[in-house]
């Protein structure tokens, strides 16, 4: 259930000026892509554009899937907030999509996924009774439950503490294996540990073009890259320097 994506001519105009235009990128089937850039450069807008979410700004996008079928209903969305519905118990949050589409619920899959994210026995808990890390794990389980070949995540692990975040990296990279993932993040370490390729949205040298996309390779090692991997610190220092450069150029 892998699905590669090719995007071309992505453009968003916000409040009368161009956020970016002529953006192209390739998301290989089953690969993990991290999207980085300074605040306000339009990372999240680009992600929303690709996910097909409602946008009030002027926008344009040519999006091609490898199988030629539309992407609609084949994208799972995960945001910075866990977006759990407080009036649904943990397990009911997983099959929200089934209820919204009037499809039968897959109880077996829901239980399996909750066990996989370490929440066995909490199926009937209210979301408000869970910790931030637990809630984000439920959100991850809900994202997986959709069984979508493409997963788009907007800073999914930024609202939890550092240790929980590292645990979530392990969990997410294991469970999202085989999916095509696009993840917006502010965290260079997170990007380097998880991604096969890094896309940096930075100010374009062309006037009136807004931002442009720079592609950097990932570390190419096993995912997630272990914290004590010797290649990690220099790569991180390099990436931070790069992000800082792009900020100064702006």
């Amino acid at each position: 259930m892998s699905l590669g994506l090719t995007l071309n001519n992505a453009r968003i105009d916000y409040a009368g000026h161009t956020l970016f235009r002529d953006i192209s990128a390739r998301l290989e089937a089953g690969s993990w892509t991290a999207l980085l850039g300074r605040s306000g450069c339009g990372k999240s807008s680009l992600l929303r554009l690709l996910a097909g979410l409602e946008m009030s700004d002027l926008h344009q996008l040519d999006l091609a899937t490898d199988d030629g079928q539309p992407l609609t209903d084949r994208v799972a969305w995960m945001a910075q907030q866990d977006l759990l519905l407080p009036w649904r118990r943990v397990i009911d949050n997983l099959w929200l999509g089934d209820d919204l589409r009037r499809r039968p619920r897959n109880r077996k899959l829901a239980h399996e996924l909750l066990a996989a994210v370490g929440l066995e026995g909490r199926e009937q808990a209210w979301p408000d009774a869970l910790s931030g890390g637990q809630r984000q794990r439920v959100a991850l389980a809900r994202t997986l439950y959709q069984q979508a070949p493409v997963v788009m995540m907007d800073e999914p692990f930024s609202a939890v503490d550092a240790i929980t975040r590292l645990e979530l990296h392990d969990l997410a990279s294991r469970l999202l294996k085989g999916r095509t993932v696009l993840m917006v993040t502010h965290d260079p370490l997170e990007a380097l540990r998880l991604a096969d390729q890094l896309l940096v949205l930075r100010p374009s040298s062309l006037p009136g073009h807004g931002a442009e996309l720079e592609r950097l390779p990932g570390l190419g090692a096993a995912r997630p890259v272990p914290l004590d991997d010797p290649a990690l610190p220099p790569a991180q220092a390099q990436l931070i320097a790069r992000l800082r450069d792009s900020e100064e150029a702006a």
Partner: protein
Amino acid sequence: MKRLHAMRHLVISALLLLGLWQLIIAVTAVPPYILPTPQAVLEVLIEKAPLLAHHAGVTISEILAGLVLGILLGLATALALAFIPRLRRTLLPMLLISQVIPLFAIAPLLVLWLGYDMLSKVVMATLIIYFPVASTGYDGLRQTQQGWLDLAHTLGASPWRRLIHIQLPAALPALASGIRMAATAAPIGAVIGEWAGASQGLGYLMLNANARMEIDLMFAALLVLVAFSLLLYFSLDALLRALMPWHRDRLTRLS
């Protein structure tokens, strides 16, 4: 346990009020036709129980009918406002106008148009309940988190399913505050209606007793009305809590 606790505080408050009442009589030596003793009121309450029950039955029916109608109309208005943008420009000002017209002023008109029977009182109660329900319901429906709407979009929800599964439950806490407000206001509507012109009901009984200097009967009728209003509030509150089990511990408590 908490509920029992709340009840105990209510009883203590009632006893304090009763003590104050008795104290005022003892200190000012006010004659019983101005302020009757609690004991005299209790005697009338027992002696005239069938009469009070008859009139209470009428008023309670008016209040409950008004409550149901007001909540339904308020909800319908909130939904229309939230989902038909074109309606907002005309409906919102009308909603406001309906609220700023003093009910006391139109009560005689309603009685003139709709008669001395229950209908005019039900309409009064409906009018007084309608606004808080419509406005809190509309606010609640408007303030659905954008993230939830995004999620519903990627999950392929139709507008109708989105309303049922996301927007309505999200609006429920706000709507519940409106319904609680309505529950305390509803008896006022019915009694004003009865004052403006009626042949039965607790408001009618009070007005009549007042004219005949039966102040103890007037107090007894008032007590029945207060007791029912409290009962109505607490029952509705319990019902709303049962509807929102996830929200239980975040609600502000009366006591």
